[in-house]
């Protein structure tokens, strides 16, 4: 349910800005947060939630089913791979931030490069603006992660 709320929030923000700027990937950040804080059964659920969320996004905004579904699943798999490869001592704030930032960077840069839209200077300005908004979202995700970890250790 919480994933649907975040997906809808991202959708409503996109409607609100009317495509004037790209909204940060709130839904995917929520999934990454779940990946980093839950056990493996949830991970499989997260993989398929990412797929469905991406598919719904494709049907709502892109019109090419599979594009964002692939992007989201790729991000989830990448995060899972890095997370499992990292020793516990390597899970530093910077790494956590980069994992959240990956969720912002990959779908946006893929859509900018592959969807064949106007990759003009203005488009790259929009991309930069989106990343400008994405960094606080990534920081927020990292903050919530450490809050959660602190609660677990307390």
């Amino acid at each position, binding site marked *: 349910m919480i994933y649907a709320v975040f997906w*809808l929030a991202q*959708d*409503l*923000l996109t*409607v*609100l*800005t*009317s495509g004037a700027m790209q909204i940060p990937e709130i839904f995917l950040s929520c999934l990454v947060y779940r990946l980093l804080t839950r056990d*493996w059964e949830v*991970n*499989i659920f997260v*993989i*398929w939630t*990412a*797929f469905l969320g*991406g*598919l*719904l996004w494709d*049907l*709502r905004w892109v*019109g*090419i*089913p*599979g*594009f964002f*579904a*692939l992007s989201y*699943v*790729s991000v*989830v*798999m990448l995060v*899972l791979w890095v997370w*499992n490869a990292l020793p516990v001592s390597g899970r530093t704030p910077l790494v956590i931030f980069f994992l959240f930032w990956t969720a912002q960077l990959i779908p946006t840069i893929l859509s900018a490069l592959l969807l064949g839209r106007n990759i003009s200077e203005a488009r790259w300005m929009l991309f930069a603006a989106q990343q400008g908004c994405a960094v606080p979202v990534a920081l927020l995700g990292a903050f919530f992660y450490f809050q959660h970890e602190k609660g677990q250790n307390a």
Partner: protein
Amino acid sequence: MVDKRLTAEWIHGIVALIVGFFLLGASPNLGVLRSVVDFVGSVLSVPEYPAVVSREFLQDLYRWAKDKNDLTRQLKVLQDENSKLRITRSVLVAEQIKAELDARMEEARVTLREPHSWWNEFRIDKGFNQGVIIGLPVFQNGFLVGRVSSVSTFSSWVELLTSPALMIPVVIEETRELGVVVGDGSGSVLLTYIPEGRGIEAGMKVSTALISELLPPGIPIGSIADEGAASGSGYVTYKITPGAATSLLYTVTILKHSKGIFR
């Protein structure tokens, strides 16, 4: 256990990726795609409705603010333009009035000033044929010195400010107090009918009040010379220092009448 978990995750991930690639490859050939996209759009239009309304409201707000900004800028430009036009118009009117006044100004020479009526009247060399009529104001150095009292064909008589027969309603410019200027027949000019306690001080300027078309308001006469003397009936009489040199009258200027200018 961990390996089993990782394997399960990778299997699910790879399956999801395969399905994604399949959809991506097959989507151009899927006939129902358009219907599905429309269906998703129509279903989502319900929860998206508040966002659509908010977006329209924000767009309206932005347009309103932009329009207001544009209108304010245009208003400023128009105000500036209007100010310049007003100044231009004022300058043109002032020039027109000056030209008209110049045309109406007629210089006259004093031809007779009899000793027995020295402070009452004098004669000038302009008369009816030069457009002089009874009542016209006569100036010296830009100050009122008297009014035309009688006219003949080639000459006229001017009643002096110092004459007790000439009474001119005036205004004290600093206080807008009204009074009457009258001569005493022996070289002095007095300001009368000023109520006591009005704060009149020496040096205040006196000019004509609105009397008639022949003697327009605002013509300077002189300034108050002393503290004034109470008459006992609640009024004070002040001595006036005339701007015109009433004892040195060789030439004067007549302001001829022209209908329209002081309407």
